């Protein structure tokens, strides 16, 4: 597996990061449910935040964070879902799509403070609106309203731009959306339904 980061030139500050570069930043892993409950705190969103990790509250996956606060990573995961909401995608796919920001933040102090600052700003607006935090804001529409207020800022554009490839370039996402991907090794679609439409 190649490990270099490839960036595609697009309007700054948005940059695409491909799947292979996301892979090197550690796979999501599993904790036992017991480990989880002794080590972490359940957030309103169904995410558990521990001292240096976040996890799903059913222990389906967990992610170690190196630079970002676990609470910040939880905010990013929720934000990712709010930006591109697919109700049949598990949180793991969103977590996978944003985890690269932790590695970038580990090497780049300015980036780290932009992300931490952005997450804090989201929480501050949520509190003004009478909620406990961004993640603790119950309705998607209320969270989206918060995002709208910071839509043009580099923090939002970095997260959204990164998701275009980070989220949609995952083979599991292709499966869920009904895209079968690479076909050469299967002999193409000539004998696999290239003209099978039957409802016209």
């Amino acid at each position, binding site marked *: 597996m190649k490990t270099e980061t490839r960036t595609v030139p697009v*309007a700054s500050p948005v940059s695409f990061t491909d799947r292979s570069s996301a892979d090197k930043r550690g796979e999501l892993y599993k904790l036992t449910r017991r480990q989880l409950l002794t080590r972490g705190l359940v957030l309103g969103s169904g995410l558990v935040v521990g001292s240096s990790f976040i996890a799903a509250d059913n222990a389906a996956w967990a992610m170690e964070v190196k630079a970002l606060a676990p609470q910040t990573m939880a905010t990013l995961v929720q934000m990712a879902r709010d930006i*591109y909401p697919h109700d049949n995608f598990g949180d793991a796919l969103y977590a996978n799509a944003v985890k690269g920001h932790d590695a970038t933040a580990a090497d780049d102090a300015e980036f780290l403070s932009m992300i931490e600052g952005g997450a804090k700003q989201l929480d501050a607006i949520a509190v003004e609106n009478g909620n406990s935090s961004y993640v603790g804001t119950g309705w998607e529409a209320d969270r989206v309203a918060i995002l709208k207020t910071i839509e043009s800022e580099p923090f939002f554009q970095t997260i959204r731009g990164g998701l275009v490839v980070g*989220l949609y*370039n995952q083979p599991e996402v292709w499966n869920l959306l009904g895209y079968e991907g690479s076909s050469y090794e299967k002999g193409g679609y000539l004998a*696999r339904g290239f*003209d099978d439409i039957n409802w016209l």
Partner: protein
Amino acid sequence: MTAPYEHNDDSVVVIIGTGAGGGTLANELAQKGISVVALEAGGRHLPPDYINDEWASFGQLAWTDMRTTSGSWRVAKDFANLPAWIVKAVGGSTTHWAGASLRIQDHEFRALTEYGSVEGASLMDWPITLKDLEPYYEKAESKMGVTRTNGIPGLPGNNNFKVMKAGADKLGYKNCHTGRMAINSQPRDGRTSCQQLGFCFQGCKMGAKWSTAYTEIPKGEETGNLEVRENAHVLKIEHDDSGKISGVLYADKDGNQHLQKCRVACVAGNSIESPRLLLNSASTMFPDGLANSSGQVGKNYMRHMTGSVYASFEKPVNMYRGTTMAGIITDESKHDTSRGFVGGYEMETLSIGVPFMAAFLNPGAWGREFSAAMDSYENMAGMWLVGEDMPQESNAISLSDEKDQFGLPAANVHFDDHPNDVAMRNHAYQQGMAVYDAVGATQTHPTPPYPSTHNLGTNRMSANAADGVVNGFGQSHDISNLFVSDGSQFTTGAAENPTLTIVTLAIRQADYIAEQMNADAI
């Protein structure tokens, strides 16, 4: 002399770029016994290397050197450093291309005469006619194995085509079929037939689609008269005291610079790099750049009026299965001003995978509307709209303040739509959506133009030396041993996808260069 050639061999023809124009010209000249050195900035990738994965393939093949943008086109905002989608590899953009191969129509060669003068547009008639090109179109179609010519059957229709065809029939369109495609519908010319992989834009792993990378170039090399140097990035074209081209300076893959002497130089780097190279080659004798006495180098940049319509249905389409562009409606390609614009457009099936759909469906958009469209991916059909855009002098390639990896000024691409382009796009969106609505679309998505795939016109042909850069054979009006051999020669864009015409012009130019060399005129 046979290949390889010495750097100081000044008897060779040097060709810069090995895409549709350069790759074809290289083979045609080599077949005539002329010694050719083709310099290609990219590496050599062949079907076994091609990757059935959109971003990975883009990383492998696309031109991602520094470029900048300006103007009111949306690409300048969404893809500021990616104005165009062009390949940097042996074979050029014929590795990515979809294969649609249409002749320019007779009246389109006389755009100014037929359309009349259009405010703000620098329309001209071509200095050549369809009649001049017909014999060469025939050669090109045979070389490329274009379906529905030379007795070659059309490709079978895939799901995406069937949706288009059903809609076209309901709307009363008369001309809808699986296209004229440079894709083998049956084995031909030592290449197999299409297996419906659905990754035509990523390089055809079957070799069923014509690309100079594995047709023209190896054929030329077999003659012993063609040397292709890959990873050879041309920096400057040099001339002697008499103002004739004397050699071409290039950097090899390690960055070492070499001067290849030559008798003739042909520029075929596609319509952004070709004018940039001429401008970057300015000298004391030619302070505005080579071949630029008219001031037209880099001007009149055209990219076709484009747009796409994707539509979602209640049931699966699976448009990505099979040929990317294998269906066309040609009814709107006529010139009929009752529609509110001059010129015409084609409607062609198009499919992109989930990764590219996310990037291109509505760049910058987010929220439920966008993700709902993505959720319907499996049930989507899609078409591309491609029509004649108006040449405008202010749409131009110029030298940017940004530098490339060699320290040379990068290309800036400036573009504003002409009101005629906007009127045509709106009509095309409306008709495209109507096609899908006629077969029960539940949502339609009028999708903005992608980074330019058809880049044209920046070294245009003209009868008169004051109006353009090259004559009807692609020869510089100013410097007789300098030629332009790619799509930048186009005087106007016409509605049709350009590559068949680029290949046709290259075959014709090869005859002319050989004649001129024989006559010692160059």
